[in-house]
């Protein structure tokens, strides 16, 4: 992380016993056993003195990070004139993201300047930085930068699905998107503010949504990390992000996928901001709620089964989970990694609560993943209780590799 090595100053002198020890300390600070921090493969101490995510690598680390207590996603438009300026923009974004994710300190400035760091986070031992995932949207491949021939084969504007009549252009799409996750809201907001100030004027933020997840301490595959705002366990049937073989199968674009070569190691991101009619939901019979989802609300077990981890056996294909993953031959091609968060943003103009799910899914094929699954969900009975408001399709840039390349280097090479 040569970019950051000159910048950090005044890091606490406390020594950690490598990443795992550091992780434990961070987890204790965060107030709960923070699972990811125990895993040295995705989360490493960038030095003995501060914690950080590994920005460098084949893939962007945030994609396979476990569900976070706080999240934010934004659609951004770029405001640069040509490909050269776009390159410079990616360099600035990458420097900003690398510094953020490293957890390193920002430069000290004298009091006559605005501080380089927002100051939202106490930098005591155990500060856990946010991760950032940078993606590109369909519109970046229009005529402005001469990138049309390099567009990932399946990248396209998000079409209108069955229940999408409240989806607005103003809250959809973007030349770029950033998704940010962190253990506190402050760390996520810090991330977004630092990122935006580093590219002010060159990027127009179009829309953002931020939110939260309650995360159970003993997070493991097959067990949902938390609940969504319908009160149901969310994430039960998610693939294991720590399994490289699953991720290569389900998430990361592979050499035989007929993508442009630069896209290897990236993935498609589908973002859907989906409002829930929570007042109505809270007036709905439990039996109906459970039939709509296909699982028991309290235990998370598939209907007719006992435990959350039991494999569903469907007799009808009406429920949300049966439509989403019918478990028929061939349907394993439609798997995806879901990693979203809940949101609650005050009231709408009719005094009703604007709450719901910021759905994020990562998949190796947009067509086989999100689009196929959403087409199967189109017309589901759950639609009565939900209204998509926005979002978009993006392509998550491959990781920046081990050298000093910025994100997007392979695209703009």
């Amino acid at each position, binding site marked *: 992380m040569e970019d950051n090595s000159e910048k950090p100053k005044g890091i606490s002198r406390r020594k950690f016993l490598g990443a795992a020890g550091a992780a434990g300390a961070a987890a204790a600070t965060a107030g709960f056993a923070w699972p990811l921090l125990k895993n040295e493969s995705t989360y490493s101490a960038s030095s003995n003195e501060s914690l950080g995510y590994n920005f460098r690598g084949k893939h962007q680390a945030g994609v396979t990070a476990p569900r976070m207590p706080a999240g934010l996603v934004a659609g951004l438009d770029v405001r640069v004139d040509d490909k050269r300026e776009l390159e410079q923009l990616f360099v600035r974004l990458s420097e900003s993201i690398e510094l953020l994710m490293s957890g390193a300190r920002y430069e000290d400035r004298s009091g*006559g300047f605005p501080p380089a760091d927002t100051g939202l986070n106490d930098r005591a031992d155990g500060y856990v930085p946010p991760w950032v995932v940078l993606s590109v949207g369909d519109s970046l491949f229009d005529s402005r930068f001469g990138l049309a021939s390099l567009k990932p084969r399946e990248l396209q504007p998000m079409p209108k699905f069955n229940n999408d009549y409240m989806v607005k252009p103003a809250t959809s799409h973007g030349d770029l998107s950033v998704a940010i996750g962190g253990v506190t809201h402050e760390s996520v907001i810090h991330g977004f503010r630092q990122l935006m100030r580093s590219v002010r004027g060159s990027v127009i933020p179009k829309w953002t949504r931020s939110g939260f997840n309650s995360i159970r301490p003993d997070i493991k595959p097959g067990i949902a990390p938390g609940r969504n705002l319908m009160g149901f366990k969310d994430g039960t049937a998610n693939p294991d992000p720590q399994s490289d073989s699953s991720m290569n199968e389900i998430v990361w674009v592979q050499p035989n996928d007929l993508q442009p070569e630069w896209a290897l190691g990236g993935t498609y991101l589908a973002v859907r901001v989906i409002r829930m009619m929570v007042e109505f939901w809270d007036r709905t019979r439990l039996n109906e709620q459970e039939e709509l989802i296909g699982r028991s609300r309290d235990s998370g077990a598939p209907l007719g089964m006992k435990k959350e981890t039991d494999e569903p056996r469907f007799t009808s294909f009406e429920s949300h989970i049966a439509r989403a993953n019918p478990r028929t031959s061939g349907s394993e091609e439609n798997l995806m990694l879901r990693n979203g968060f809940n949101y609650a943003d005050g009231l709408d103009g009719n005094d009703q609560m604007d709450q719901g799910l910021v759905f994020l899914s990562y998949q190796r094929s947009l067509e086989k993943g999100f689009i196929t699954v959403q087409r199967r969900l189109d017309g589901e009975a759950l639609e009565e209780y939900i209204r998509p408001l926005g979002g978009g399709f993006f392509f998550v840039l491959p990781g920046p590799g081990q050298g000093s390349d910025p994100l997007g280097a392979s695209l703009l090479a």
Partner: protein
Amino acid sequence: MKSFNGPKVGGLLVALTLVFAACGSDDSSSSGSGSSTGISASELVQETDNALIEDAVDGYRAYIGEQIAAMQAETAIFADAIRAGDAEAAAAAYPISRRPWERIEPIAGLIEDIDGAVDAREDDFDGPMDPTFTGWHKLEYFLWEAGDLSEAGPFADQLEADLQTFADALPGLELPPGVLTVGAQELIEEVAAPDGKLSGEEDRYSGTDLYDFKANVEGAEALIELLTPALESADHDLLDAIEASFDELNNQLAQFGSFADGYVHYDEVTEDQRSELAAALGELAESLSMLNGTLGLE
């Protein structure tokens, strides 16, 4: 250390943008301060040993003098038209008369209650007909909303009297060096504020926000011009960045008109165009935020 003992007008925006405003120690309770405009003297850097900045302060005093003279002359035309009941002439003179004020708007914070008297919005009062609501926006209301100037005359008199008070205060006004840097910053932050020009809140009845917008930019440019010798030696790249941002902003504004030909009604500026303006303002504001530190005004 020089000190300035005037009460402070406004201050919310200042508290957010001033370097030393740790927690908004100034009270913004002075009555009817409309748009949170202006600098609080106590929070400005009071001293410099940089002769180039001292020259700039002298230059700024002269600039303020010119602007106040223009303000009084242009406001006289506006006030006469109001008193004569000539709505058309008054409407034409309204945005013109405001330009000098908008160019030196942050200075208002250095003079007691002036901003509340001449530039407040109806939001600070019991509705637009509240008799204590005075100033340009009151007259703007008579012209564009009420469509009746029969009771407007006394408010035109009052505006002229208040501007005279402003003019009279100038000779005794302390101008600490921090007024230059913070003033430039403030003019741009003021445009972008949620109740500022970008949102169309300022001239909500007339839609003449672009005149104010342009005048704010001109006021900031004048300050940078005065600071150019100091900046040339302190940080040429920063100066280049600031000048490029002004060019960009002025090019954008030019698509909506000019003072000579008039500007379009602010309603005609689309959401996308407002986003573009916001982006250019943001880029400029980031650069301006580096001025104090760069010039050693700690």
